């Protein structure tokens, strides 16, 4: 393995990690303070709107893709 490959896999690991820690996990709501420094409000708004579009699509299809 050359250094370049190691760097790239580290890179991927970090991206995967950031995706999880910033977007997943237990969410606090209500009167609880949430850090909003750096968060682009327009982006967030559009994202929220679209995730509800996605949910609607799934409801229309009558199922979510989830198996156990």
């Amino acid at each position, binding site marked *: 393995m050359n250094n370049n490959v190691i760097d*790239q*896999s580290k*890179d*991927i*690991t970090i991206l995967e*990690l950031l995706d999880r820690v910033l*977007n997943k996990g237990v969410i606090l709501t209500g009167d609880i303070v949430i850090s909003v420094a750096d968060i682009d409000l327009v982006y967030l708004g559009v994202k929220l709107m*679209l995730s509800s579009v996605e949910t609607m699509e799934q409801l229309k299809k009558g199922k979510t893709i989830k198996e156990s």
Partner: protein
Amino acid sequence: MSENKILFNTGSLDGLSEEIGKLTNNDESRLKLTPDNADSGLAKLVLTLVELIRKLVEKQAMRRVDGGSLTDEEIERLGETLMKLELKMEELKKHFNLTDRDLNINLGPLGDLM
């Protein structure tokens, strides 16, 4: 946290980190509205949504055409309308100096908008 978490991969990693980067939050594709770019920022936001809806309509229309329930005349008119919409959209994009890429928003974990 420098531990390598890749458990399985046989292919090349070239371009892969870039691709994964697209799936996570990155700055470049965010809509940024500031006083200086309010005009083009707003155009970008509005056109992004218009383009999304136009594509949805087009997709739905093709489903109907594929379903075979439309008459020739209906298909003809549908084609005319959608084609004109597409051309109009091209004009608007040119006018505001926007590319297809500009009109796509990276939705982080949701992937690309279009």
